[in-house]
């Protein structure tokens, strides 16, 4: 189905699609086509910001179809200690023992659908067909950098210390964000991820 396009100010378009995977697909495609200064995917929308000619870009967007994205992104292995304070609660919600929850999470193929909340914070979707994970009723005042959490259908990793309401299942020593690196985000949108228990 062709995407639904709404103007978002005088220099931007907001494109609505059916699902998160389509948003990523469209964003990667639009980035490759050079349609805008900033191409920002989210849950079910993609922003094209810094568009010189809104009408011409609408015409180009109408040619997109799901699956038009370029080749799959790079695969990154993220070593992870599954020792988070909420692992038991998450496993209970999934109706299984913590060991099995870890096996399911490490066995799944994850992909970074989009980034947000903080620079380099990835929202990963996966092929896990498991119940959504509720956010904590009361967010923690401080979550340590490298904490890996679940919320809704997403896995996320905190690049820096911050307050946070995601249920924490573990921790990685990988540096998610370093603005002095050539590629500051370890896991930009489109990156495929396997979590490796250690």
């Amino acid at each position, binding site marked *: 189905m062709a995407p639904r396009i*709404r*103007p*978002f*100010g*005088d*220099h*931007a378009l*907001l494109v609505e699609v059916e699902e998160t995977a389509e948003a990523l697909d469209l*964003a990667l495609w639009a*980035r490759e086509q050079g349609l805008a*200064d*900033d*191409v*920002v*995917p*989210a*849950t*079910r*929308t*993609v*922003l094209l*910001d*810094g568009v010189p000619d809104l009408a011409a870009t609408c015409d180009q967007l109408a040619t997109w179809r799901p699956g038009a994205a370029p080749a799959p992104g790079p695969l990154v292995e993220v070593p992870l200690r599954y020792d988070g304070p909420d692992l038991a609660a998450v496993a209970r919600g999934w109706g299984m023992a913590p060991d099995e929850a870890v096996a399911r999470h490490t066995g799944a193929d994850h992909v970074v659908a*989009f*980034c*947000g*909340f*903080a*620079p*380099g*914070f990835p929202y990963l979707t996966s092929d896990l067909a498991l119940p959504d994970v509720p956010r904590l009723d009361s967010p923690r005042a401080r979550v340590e950098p490298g904490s890996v959490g679940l919320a809704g259908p997403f896995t996320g990793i905190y690049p820096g210390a911050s307050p946070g309401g995601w249920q924490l299942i573990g921790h990685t020593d990988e540096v998610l964000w370093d*603005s*002095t690196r050539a590629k*500051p*985000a370890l896991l*930009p*949108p489109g990156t495929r991820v396997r979590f490796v228990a250690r």
Partner: protein
Amino acid sequence: MTLTVTRAGALSTCQDLGRIGHAHLGVPRAGALDQPAAALANRLVGNPREAAVIETTLDGVALHTSADHWFAVTGAPCPVTVAGRAVAHGEPVFAPAGSEVVVGAALRGVRSYLAVAGGVAVAPVLGSRSTDTLAWVGPPRLVVGMELAVGTPSGEIRPLDVPPPVRGRALRVIAGPRLDWFAPEAWRTLCTATWRAGAESNRIGLRLGGPALERSRTGELASEPMVLGAVQVPPSGQPVVFLADHPVTGGYPVIAVVLADDLHHCAQARPGDEVTFTPAPRG
């Protein structure tokens, strides 16, 4: 050549055109809130428009010079002195080595801009010298004792006869992507009410107080990307105009978007100042 900060003020930062192209990584754009004022300051001292300037907040900044510099202060009108002597706002001014340049408190408006010939040459981060105050990407905010490198002057120092910016003009808006989440009268309310700038306003957003903008749809909007100038309406019904350091995504519906050319007015709205909106002419 360096400028040493002798008084940092409430919030003084380096700003340029902003950090474009990194929003998909969760990086706010940042950049001078009052772009026309920053551009004018740069022109007065012969800088290219992308040169970094210092943006102050309400109470100015003070700097000590280690070499001779031309500079200019624009934006919110304020007293400016060099070695204790009053100099002009909005004109190129010479400061000899060893003098203190003081940008005083804003008489009205919020943000003044100091450009130095050659530009503030702090190390760029991801292609920009702008400080983002949401995630603190970019150079750190100014603190007393900080030394700011200055670039090599390149252009012509010249006064410019520029009319002062018009104040109190209604912000032109076009319909936002989620106007259909609001009650039918909400658009009219937005464009006819007199809003007041809130005290919690900052570089992230201009918070406004006034009649509640009622929604017709309840429930949660899936988080979606935001743009500069988006007028987002949280459950309180009190709108927030997103400014340069806005988060890249947001979960509340956007009723309207302020035209880019009008955003500089938001930069200068003090708490309590009146703010009004008007539908942008089509075309």
